[in-house]
């Protein structure tokens, strides 16, 4: 009796350890997988993550639960991902350049660095969008800049978090147009929406995905896409390049990553399942509805993109910190 209990215990204990072994990958996944999103529910990262989770579940053969850990521009969620057990049961959405700027800001004392994550597969590239409420007096970027010049520091522009891509976009715009905004940091697209729609802030620096439907319905008005080309979802909204703001180029990419130390064979299983889901026709259709542009990247390509973003973000973050 005692002997049997011991073997039972030992067997179950062994499967729970986190050391890499081929036996684990064969069994993986044995139980539901958590997918941490570092932003609140309802934001565009969350929307994309939920679509992806629902699609990848079928290929992975286990439930994928999206867990929102919003706050501090994603730092709380990213910290959680980095600190999670590297057993493949906790994955997370990596938002670039948010991950990078957090690492680069010394005041934040980030509990993770570039090497804390294994970028597995990218899902979305969402360009930035400057938008206002549907009945706003600002009809174009020029109107907005004029107003900001007339009353420096009075026009309230909101971001989805300090040092987010949106924050960098505001800084880029301030530099390019030589104007000054009053920057208000929210921590999710939902709060941004509430802020602009409720008239508490004047303009949102946001991403295309979260707002497409409201621009179509006239509730909101898009002023510019911070990209070199127009967005296919908003063919009537000019891009910053054509408006002459060639340095105001900002976007957010989102993909699935795992904490450092996750066994390579498990990473492979995840990559295969998620990539298959991202490339499916169903995914494309759903993401089109959500206004999110797909940009699948895996392996070396994604790793290089991750490293490049880090280098690029370094420049902007140092600049942002200097302005503080």
């Amino acid at each position, binding site marked *: 009796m005692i002997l049997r209990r011991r073997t039972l*215990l*030992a067997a*179950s*204990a062994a499967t*729970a*350890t986190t050391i890499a072994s081929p036996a684990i990958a064969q069994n993986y996944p044995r139980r539901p997988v958590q997918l941490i999103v570092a932003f609140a529910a309802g934001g565009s990262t969350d929307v994309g993550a939920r679509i992806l989770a629902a699609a990848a579940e079928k290929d992975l053969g286990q439930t994928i639960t999206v867990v929102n850990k919003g706050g501090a521009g994603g730092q709380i969620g990213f910290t959680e991902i980095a600190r999670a057990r590297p057993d493949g049961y906790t994955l997370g959405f990596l938002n670039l350049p948010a991950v990078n700027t957090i690492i680069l800001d010394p005041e934040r004392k980030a509990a993770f660095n570039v090497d804390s994550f294994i970028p597995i597969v990218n899902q979305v590239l969402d360009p930035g969008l400057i938008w206002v409420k549907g009945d706003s007096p600002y009809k174009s970027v020029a109107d907005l800049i004029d107003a900001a010049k007339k009353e420096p520091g009075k026009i309230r522009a909101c971001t989805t978090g300090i040092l987010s891509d949106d924050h960098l976009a505001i800084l880029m715009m301030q530099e390019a147009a030589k104007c000054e905004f009053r920057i208000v940091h929210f921590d999710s697209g939902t709060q941004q929406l509430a802020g602009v729609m409720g008239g508490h802030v004047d303009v949102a620096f946001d991403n295309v995905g979260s707002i497409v439907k409201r621009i179509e319905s006239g509730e909101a008005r898009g002023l510019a896409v911070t990209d070199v080309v127009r967005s296919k979802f908003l063919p009537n909204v000019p891009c910053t390049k054509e408006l002459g703001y060639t340095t105001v180029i900002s976007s957010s990419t989102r993909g699935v990553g795992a904490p450092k130390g996750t066994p390579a064979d498990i990473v492979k299983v995840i990559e295969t399942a998620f990539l298959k889901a991202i490339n499916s026709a169903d995914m494309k259709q759903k993401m089109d509805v959500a206004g999110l542009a797909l940009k699948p990247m895996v392996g070396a390509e994604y790793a290089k993109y991750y490293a490049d973003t880090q280098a690029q973000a370094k420049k902007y973050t140092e600049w942002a910190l200097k302005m503080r």
Partner: protein
Amino acid sequence: MRQGRLIATGVMLAFCLFALWQALLLSLTDRLGPGPGFFPFWLALIGAVLAVALLFTTFREPVDPADAEVRILPHGPGAKRWLAIVVLLAATAAAMEIVGFRLAMLVFNAALVIALGERRWWLIAVFAVLGSFGVHYIFTTWLDVLLPAGWIWS
């Protein structure tokens, strides 16, 4: 009772002062508005003032003879039961990482029901096993709750 309240308020005052000191190490404001230290600083300050006020009013309060009867720390025959719960919980939390949920709980269940006065050994045995191995099975298999496995088994 009054003495207990005074001590507790004193501890809270110390806590607020400590928080005040810690908050001052953070930046109260920066160019972009209130900083990380802003809220904790004001809270700790208000808390400290309140604690002093409470100390003062408690001190001035007339001593209620009925209150003097109330004992704050566990006492009497119940104190043993009280201590058993605290000590066994702490021991279980410490042991769980090493021997795992099932074994730690097996011992905890048996020890606590005995400490709380149960003497029927067969009931104790059934309860201890159900409350450890049984509960572990239900939670890990049906409810997807992870419980510590214990590292000495691996």
